[in-house]
């Protein structure tokens, strides 16, 4: 039998329906591969028994001609999505043993469309990190390595497990979340496609909350078409999330064929950072040229407030996190460190349960919200954020899409950037503005650098411009023709 793990979701879907292979054969190949790839630390928990029941049901449905859109597609679920009865701990010791009595809306949508859940994927603790190194389970490892080296590299973060698993073909597609770049940066570092939708497009209900005004779920997939197929199922209105938008979900897969002829694509000049590597700069220029050859018009745009986006983020996100994570108190779920005094019990539980980065952010958040500092930090940040969003909206009056690099560097070695928090935060310099403005962004593989590591390109669209964005991304993907695969050193 052919290696089914090389197939895209679209190919698996069509092949199963044409009875070329069964859902059981697909699952068996993916699962065997995932089990033999534990060295990547991408999956933190498998869901074997339940998954096999789903697979059998899928094959019965396919036989009856009743296949749903994702029937029998093996997926990995970031361990930030609550899965009913299956432990969900957000890679935090404080949530060890938590078995949600409910299913997140996004994962339920996928189940309703026939997807099979192989298990839960690694991430930075509570999605706070850009390298997976804050995970209580230890980091997921990037399947890509520098040519001729054995240094373990980060798959990025926070959705590093999702990106590593898709890049290593351990699952056909994965769920992920993006608060400041957590879908797009890992996708860029692993040569996968990561799509962050418009804020409100996918329900946040049942996703462990980090920064509620920024968090958004989306897919990581092998190619643009697969990301569109997954978004079709993940997106939709949910009354259980008060910020969910009641707006019809178009068929995103249909958007792929359109091409970029006549589109105006903006190059934000402030994204050309001092010290940007020549390779990333060249790749950016080359990809703009490719889009131009396809009939797009390339326009330089100016977003002078770009440099303030990360500082705004590092006030707003920790502030919201400090409020959201107040719920971990050793009373309702997770672990408790006992003390006779309730305040000491809270403090010990949180002191031992949270990792260093989470504590750092909770303290920053607590400080910027505390009496006397609220106006100077939090309120000011929210006003600068408004200006950034307005500047972005003005840019989209001139252009249909923005083209930028996805991350300032290729994958780096584990431990290389963990000493300095701010250096780590700079990973999100190209992605975070989309979160502040609430607009969608997608990262696609752009090419390999001199060391053989993937580099990503990002397209950003105005709110609810996913179709245009997917159209642009598919055209660029085809023009680039990226088809490199990591060497399988880990099996």
């Amino acid at each position: 039998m052919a290696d089914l793990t090389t197939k895209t979701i679209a190919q698996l879907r069509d092949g199963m329906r044409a009875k070329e292979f069964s859902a059981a054969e697909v699952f068996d190949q993916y699962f065997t591969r995932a089990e033999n790839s534990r060295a990547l630390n991408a999956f933190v928990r498998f869901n074997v028994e339940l998954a096999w029941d789903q697979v059998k049901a899928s094959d019965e449905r396919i036989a009856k001609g009743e296949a749903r859109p994702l029937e029998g597609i093996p997926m990995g679920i970031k361990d930030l999505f609550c899965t009913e009865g299956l432990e969900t701990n957000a890679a935090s010791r404080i949530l060890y043993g938590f078995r949600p009595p409910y299913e997140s809306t996004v994962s339920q949508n996928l189940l309703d469309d026939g997807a099979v859940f192989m298990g839960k994927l690694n991430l930075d603790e509570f999605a706070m990190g850009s390298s997976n190194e804050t995970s209580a389970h230890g980091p997921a490892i990037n399947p890509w390595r520098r040519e001729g080296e054995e240094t373990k590299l980060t798959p990025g973060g926070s959705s590093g497990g999702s990106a590593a698993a898709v890049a290593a073909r351990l699952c056909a597609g994965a769920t992920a979340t993006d608060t400041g770049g957590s879908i797009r940066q890992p996708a860029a570092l692993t040569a996968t496609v990561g799509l962050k939708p418009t804020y409100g497009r996918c329900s946040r209900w049942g996703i462990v909350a980090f920064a509620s005004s920024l968090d958004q779920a989306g897919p990581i997939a092998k190619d643009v078409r697969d990301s569109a197929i997954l978004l079709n199922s993940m997106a939709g209105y949910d009354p259980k999330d008060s910020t969910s938008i009641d707006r019809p979900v178009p068929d995103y897969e249909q958007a792929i064929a359109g091409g970029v002829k006549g589109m105006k694509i903006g190059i934000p000049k402030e994204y050309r950072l001092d010290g940007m590597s020549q390779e990333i700069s060249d790749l950016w220029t080359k990809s703009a040229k490719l889009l131009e050859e396809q009939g797009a018009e390339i326009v330089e745009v100016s977003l002078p407030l770009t440099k303030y986006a990360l500082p705004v983020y590092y006030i707003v996100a920790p502030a919201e996190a400090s409020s959201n994570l107040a719920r971990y108190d050793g009373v309702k779920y997770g672990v408790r460190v006992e003390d006779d005094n309730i305040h000491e019990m809270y403090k010990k539980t949180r002191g031992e349960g949270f990792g260093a980065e989470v504590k750092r952010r909770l303290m920053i958040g607590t400080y910027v919200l505390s009496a006397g500092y609220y106006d100077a930090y939090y309120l000011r940040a929210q006003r600068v954020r408004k200006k950034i969003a307005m500047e972005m909206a003005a840019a989209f009056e001139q252009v249909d899409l923005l083209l930028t690099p996805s991350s300032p560097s290729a994958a780096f070695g584990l431990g290389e950037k963990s000493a300095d928090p701010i250096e780590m935060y700079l990973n999100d310099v190209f992605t975070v503005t989309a979160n502040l403005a609430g607009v969608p962004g997608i990262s696609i593989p752009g090419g390999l650098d001199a060391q053989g590591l993937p580099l990503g390109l990002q397209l950003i669209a105005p709110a609810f411009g996913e179709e245009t964005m997917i159209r642009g991304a598919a055209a660029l993907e085809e023009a680039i023709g990226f088809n490199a695969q990591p060497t399988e050193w880990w099996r």
Partner: protein
Amino acid sequence: MSLDESTVKKVANLARIAIADEEVPHLMNELNGILGWIEQLQEVDIEGVEAMTSSVEVALPMRDDVLADGPTGGGQPQAVTKNAPKSDDHFFVVPKVVE
């Protein structure tokens, strides 16, 4: 603005996070590094700009004031307390707070 050691301890207490005394100097340096970096926002002119409270311009939806069905509804004390480190007869158990 920069934090001194006593402010770090105060903030940790507000955040209900136990930190050891020997962690304080290191944490103080890290927090001050981050706060120094975000200080650059002071140079942005925000005159006349309202704070952004939502990235999508929609009014918050209202719902009927009735108990929902399903996981957000009521009548499920067992499910609610199932994950508690300590519970008794559908109550969360905490250290004694009233003398």
